[in-house]
């Protein structure tokens, strides 16, 4: 039997993390090792020591299965492996790998369990463990929920350590040295006499050995990379125009396509493509299940031709006018539509009875993701295989959906994940791949790259949810005494998973995420979620439910604090029982000089939100310039357990603040005649440079658990801005985009 054959029958533990988790929570049945997907495609002399490390005589490849939508996920994953593997980041190739159950996302499941991140109890931990096991069963290789770092932090370092120890064992076998006398550095095993054996030279021998799974992770004090300032692995390419993105990818013999499907997200009644067929470069016009595509020899020609087609669209299945969407939310605050009430402390009804009740209503609009790179997918279909090249956060869904469309088996579908020019949740949807597959099936054997126009990308966007909240509260003796918040929105998860044919029974935690689990001890405290009917298609937009609820929850709290006559910072600190969360508020107060005199026409607002397990406090400072608001400065303090790369962390948090504030000021998607009114960046621009404030960031490392920071900076930002505007002007802005109510510089 060949060495490869012998290895291929063997399974590998995905690092000992699975053992640790399994033992701790006692679900042994799910603890079976996962097959190592890299073993299937190995050539003679290549070794795949874990699912994350592949070495052959020519080089070392680190597999980074979480997608990088721009926030440095590949870099962080590579650094975690390299830390224990003892390689330098410029010595390795990074490859996202093929979709495989081995790369299931552990951390995403923790967010799906209805326990507060602050709940360390046995029941909460056990439930998270069961959710984790389900996630592993389903093999959901998803990038999202700020989970890349939490999911990878131990798993990838273990993968690096297993590979390193196995290479040492190989060196011991080749040289007769004692393993205990071997060390490693810079991609090589160092022998007792000072000689070195490169990992690449040891690959063939290592491939014959059982992986050394009994490894111990290094003490953080010895880390070379993690926690240190690093140069991102892609920074040179991204500064010289040499980074290739999905939209840039080409294969031999490829043709281009552009598509139009219903802006009302329904059916196509009829179309007339007479003009398009005669246009220069047009190869074919093909009909899809709900639209029409042009295949041409050039992207622009395909777009020009598809835009010349006269199409009659059927009506939308959802209400045609924006006012009807708001009405549907307004009508949802009733017992029949109650989805959850996970927070119900004290007796809210009794506390409000006879008290002077403070009431307020808040609104947050639909928002597009609009990453700067319009989505695209390159697909080639033949009789026995399909290849997909695209930037996606859901490679396993893509694989399965292409298999269904083509009638191929999933193992005949090869998904090549490409670098993304932003996502913000946009690439958790895969309609572009499904459309490209439908086109490619009509021109079998020829690779087709489908590129959306910006307008099509906007019209077909599954947007952020629309949401509305109603607060009722009371104060007593200068303190917040009663807090009752109801939130109504359609279910994001039902809409999103519905498009994947997956049922989502039970309450949708996202309806109340960023509100129900806040670590505040208000004597009478209630948060109720109401499920509005399904309206326009919605999907996960950076911070998901918390992107709207963080605004609602904290602005209403601010209103009550002001009504009580208390200091916004002091009262939040008094109410907050969670030590790590209090520290973020204290840090934000210290950084921003909270309490010092700002002078006239200025104001500070503080907001706090724990989302994705990350307590985050933010202070915004604004000035009132002749009746227009200018955002001057923002301070952010977040508890993440461990900052992997301080430079990338700061950049990502600053960017997330700009993301949150830009949309909060300026942007919305609205519907008329069943279609989004907005088309391009002239009517949906988010933040531009001139409005961008100074942003100061501090990552706190007091907690035991490592958390991801891709989203948690978003929920408090709009609230802090609204609270600052109130402090500067006395005007309370309860609706986004705020520019509907107040001018900005």
């Amino acid at each position, binding site marked *: 039997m060949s060495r490869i054959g012998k290895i291929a029958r063997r399974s590998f533990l995905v690092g000992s993390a699975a053992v640790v988790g399994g033992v701790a929570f006692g679900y042994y049945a799910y603890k079976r090792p996962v097959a190592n997907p890299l073993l299937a495609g190995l050539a003679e002399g290549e070794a795949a020591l874990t699912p994350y490390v592949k070495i052959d005589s020519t080089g070392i490849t680190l597999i980074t299965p979480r997608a990088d*939508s*721009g*926030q*440095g996920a590949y870099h962080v994953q590579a650094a975690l492996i390299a830390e224990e593997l003892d390689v330098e980041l410029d010595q390795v190739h990074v490859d996202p790998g093929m979709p495989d159950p081995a790369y299931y996302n552990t951390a995403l499941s923790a967010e799906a369990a209805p326990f507060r991140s602050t709940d360390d109890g046995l029941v909460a931990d056990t439930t998270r463990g069961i959710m984790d096991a389900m996630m592993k069963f389903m093999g959901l290789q998803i990038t999202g929920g700020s989970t890349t770092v939490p999911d990878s932090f131990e798993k990838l370092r273990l993968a690096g350590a297993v590979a390193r120890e196995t290479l040492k064992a190989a060196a011991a076998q080749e040289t007769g040295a004692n393993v205990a006398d071997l060390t490693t550095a810079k991609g090589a095993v160092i022998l007792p006499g000072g000689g070195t054996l490169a990992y690449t030279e040891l690959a063939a021998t290592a491939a014959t050995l059982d992986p050394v799974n009994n490894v111990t992770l290094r003490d953080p004090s010895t880390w070379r990379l993690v926690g240190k300032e690093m*140069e*991102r692995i*892609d*920074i*040179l*390419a*991204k*500064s*010289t*125009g*040499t*980074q290739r*993105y999905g*939209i*840039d990818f080409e294969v031999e013999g490829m043709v*281009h396509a552009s598509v139009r499907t219903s802006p009302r997200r329904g059916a196509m009644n009829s179309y007339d493509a007479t003009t398009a067929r005669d246009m*220069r470069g047009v190869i074919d016009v093909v009909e899809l299940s709900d639209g029409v595509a042009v295949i041409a020899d*050039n*992207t*622009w*020609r395909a*777009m020009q031709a598809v835009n010349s087609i006269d199409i009659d669209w059927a009506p939308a299945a959802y209400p045609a006018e924006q006012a009807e969407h708001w009405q549907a939310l307004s009508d949802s605050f009733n017992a029949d539509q109650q989805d959850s009430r996970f927070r119900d402390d004290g007796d809210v009804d009794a506390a409000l009875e006879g008290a002077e009740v403070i009431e307020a209503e808040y609104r947050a609009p639909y928002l597009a993701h*609009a*990453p*700067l*790179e*319009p989505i695209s997918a390159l697909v080639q279909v033949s009789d026995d295989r399909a290849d997909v090249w695209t930037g996606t956060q859901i490679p396993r869904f893509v694989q399965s959906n292409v298999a269904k469309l083509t009638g191929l088996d999933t193992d005949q579908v090869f998904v090549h994940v490409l670098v*993304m*020019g*932003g*996502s*913000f949740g946009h690439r958790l949807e895969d309609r572009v791949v499904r459309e490209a597959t439908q086109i490619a099936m009509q021109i079998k054997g020829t690779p087709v790259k489908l590129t959306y*126009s*910006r307008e099509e990308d906007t019209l077909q966007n599954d947007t952020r949810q629309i949401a509305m909240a109603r607060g009722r509260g009371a104060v007593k003796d200068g303190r917040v005494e009663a807090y009752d918040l109801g939130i109504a929105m359609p279910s994001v998860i039902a809409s999103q998973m519905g498009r994947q044919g997956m049922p989502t029974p039970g309450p949708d935690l996202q309806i109340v995420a960023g509100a129900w689990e806040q670590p505040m001890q208000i004597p009478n405290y209630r948060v109720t979620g109401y499920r509005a009917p399904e309206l326009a298609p919605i999907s996960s937009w950076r911070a998901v439910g918390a992107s709207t609820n963080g605004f609602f929850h904290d602005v209403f709290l601010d209103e009550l604090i002001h009504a009580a006559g208390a200091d916004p910072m002091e009262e939040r600190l008094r109410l907050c029982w969670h030590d790590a969360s209090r520290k973020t508020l204290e840090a934000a107060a210290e950084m921003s000089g909270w309490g010092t005199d700002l002078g006239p026409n200025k104001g500070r607002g503080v907001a706090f939100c724990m989302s994705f397990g990350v307590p985050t406090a933010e202070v915004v400072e604004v000035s009132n310039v002749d009746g227009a608001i200018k955002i001057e400065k923002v301070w952010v303090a977040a508890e993440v357990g461990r900052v992997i790369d301080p*430079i990338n962390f700061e*950049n*990502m948090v*600053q*960017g*997330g*603040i*700009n*993301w949150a504030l*830009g949309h909060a000021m300026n942007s919305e998607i609205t519907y008329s005649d069943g279609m989004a009114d907005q088309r*391009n*960046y*002239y009517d949906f*621009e*988010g*933040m*531009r*440079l*001139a409005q*961008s404030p*100074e*942003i100061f960031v501090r990552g706190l490392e007091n907690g035991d658990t490592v958390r991801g920071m891709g989203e948690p900076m978003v929920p408090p930002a709009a609230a802090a801005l609204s609270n600052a505007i109130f402090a500067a002007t006395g005007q309370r802005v309860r609706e986004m985009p705020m520019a509907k109510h107040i001018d900005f510089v």
Partner: protein
Amino acid sequence: MKLTVNGTEHDVDVEDDMPLLWVLRDELNIKGVKYGCGVAQCGACTVHIDGEAVRSCQTAAADVWGEVTTIEGLGTPDAMHAVQSAWVEHQVAQCGYCQSGQIMQAAALLATNPAPTDADIDDAMNGNLCRCGTYPRIRAAVKTAATKLQEV
């Protein structure tokens, strides 16, 4: 028609109204220049024509009046322009998709205004959208690049 791009003359057979962006990307396979909006609202397609920053998505092929420089012609990974090395030094990029355009816009700014004020930078760079929100680093990198260029 004839086009000179990054010092090389090309003969391209395209419609007069095909935007320069698509001539570069699809006909000449120069992929550093990016498509973002198609209507001069995002700046991802910014290139230089005779040193001036222009939106190539709104420049018809037949209207190109001079030599075209793309990010690839500004500098290479082995021999970066001062603006590019400032972008590396500050680690500006997140997704990086807008950065070719940002860098070309900044290079054109510094060519005419070697010591821009904060307001000059805001004015010159405001048309270049960055959805990842890397603006604080863009501002800092422009200033560093200005210093580097003055030292030369």
